[in-house]
């Protein structure tokens, strides 16, 4: 079971509280989106789930185990970065198989998983190419492929579509949704784009100034926004 639970999670940078006590239960296989203005703490929360930031207070549990002190590689998560973070000196195949190679997975297993992920994302012809030979959309798909190959408990997306132009963004949104329906892995997705949140999420978590303002399905949020500000974009 891959549910994620956040219990009173706090993040402090020196004297500044970036995340001020977040409580959240994410169900297994759920696609949850953290949305909010810059600086609201959504990325920080995501990175704490990933293990890239130390947790200043509170607990995070993945699949029922508290992971506060567990390093990222042992948390069974995979992350898709805003800037893709593809290794420039490796081709697509090597990029996707790097994590498995480090774990000393047998070659046939690696090959099977990489080709399966490549099939899902439609990037099989790109396996030999280096990142610099790929377009933005293709790189994004490779980044997702890298995540899928790990077969993790949780997918973490950190504003993955912000670097793409508007048309590509819409295209990739549907891709991500399709992938989620195929792979059915718990997903935590961070964005500042409200439309993106509404189209992708099973549930939306609205954050502001380090706290959760509202949690609910896109439908609920649309009809019963918690604050005046939420009302404005939806008219």
């Amino acid at each position, binding site marked *: 079971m891959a549910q994620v639970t956040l219990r009173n999670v706090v993040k402090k940078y020196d004297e500044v509280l970036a995340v001020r006590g977040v409580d959240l239960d994410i169900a297994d296989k759920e696609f949850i989106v953290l949305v909010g203005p810059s600086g609201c703490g959504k990325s920080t929360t995501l990175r704490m789930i990933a293990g890239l930031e130390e947790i200043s207070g509170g607990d995070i549990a993945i699949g029922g185990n508290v992971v506060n002190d567990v390093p990222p590689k042992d948390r069974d998560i*995979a*992350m898709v970065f805003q800037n893709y973070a593809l*290794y420039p000196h490796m081709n697509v195949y090597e990029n996707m198989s790097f994590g498995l190679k480090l774990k000393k997975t047998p070659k046939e297993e690696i090959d099977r998983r990489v080709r399966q992920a490549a099939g899902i994302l439609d990037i099989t012809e790109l396996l030999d190419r280096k990142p610099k030979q790929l377009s933005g959309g293709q790189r994004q798909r490779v980044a997702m492929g890298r995540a899928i190959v*790990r077969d993790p408990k949780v997918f973490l997306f950190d504003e993955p579509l912000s670097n793409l132009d508007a048309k590509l963004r819409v295209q990739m949104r549907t891709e991500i949704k399709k992938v989620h329906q195929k792979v059915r892995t718990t997903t935590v997705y961070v964005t500042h784009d409200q439309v993106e949140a509404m189209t992708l999420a099973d549930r939306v978590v609205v954050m502001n100034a380090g706290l959760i303002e509202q949690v609910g399905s896109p439908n609920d949020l649309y009809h019963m926004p918690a604050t005046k500000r939420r009302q404005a974009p939806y008219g």
Partner: protein
Amino acid sequence: MANVAVAAGAPVRPLHYGSISKSRRWALRWSYFFLVLFCIFFLMPPIYMFITSIKGSAEISAATNPWWVFHPTLENYAELLTKNEYLIFFRNSALVSVCVVIISMVISVTAAFALARMKFWGSTALATGVFLTYLVPDTLLFIPLFKMFAFVRDTTGIELMNHWWTLIILYPTLSVPFCTWIMIGYFASIPKELDEAALIDGASWLQTLTKIFIPVALPGIIAATIFAFTVSWAQFLYPLAFTTSTDQLVLPVGIVTTLIKGDVFNWGQIMTGALLGAAPPLIIYAFLMDYYIAGLTAGATKG
């Protein structure tokens, strides 16, 4: 429909392109002219070294045109390469340089990785300190080092003077600061997200260094290696101060001291020796010129 009537026989306006390209052409001609002049100035000494090296000693002392070779001969090369001394110099230089390069690169790369990526107490101070060390000249340090070696001899019995391998300990002080500086620049330019991706993929710090950073920063590593080699190969002061017996000398000192016996300068051999001594850096330069230059400019512009 345009109703422009062109009167037959109207004067055609001359195109203006001509005047621009003319001044540009003259600028090019002057540029090439001066470049050739400067090339003559810069390349004249090495070319003259070569010319002299293929002259026999009779021709050298004759009053003929020194810029031309009337009777080319390889006797200088033959004698130099069969005389034991020169080959020993070459061997010493090669051993010292290779060892120093390996030591320098290991120290620099690990230190640069730590300084560029892992923040620890005093890391910024250390980085500035490294740069400052590069500015401390060897001409300041050789005297106290001289005494320090004597001290080591008196206390531990290890004789550091007059051994070519002592240079392996000393030379890194000349190459490590700059190499570290270069590598910090290259490492710092690698996006942080790459580290994080590697961390999530399960790489330890060492694996991140070897499988990600080093391959991505390879141009910097090549440039730093070339720099370390060139500096070691060309070093003159330390070996002059610390090695005296012929079999312990490295190339620069060997040529200068042994081939100049008293008042008799065997110029043919000296020039041959100097040319062969300059050959390794020149060959590396010829093949890896871009990395060479990258290393140079990296230090100053990457700050």
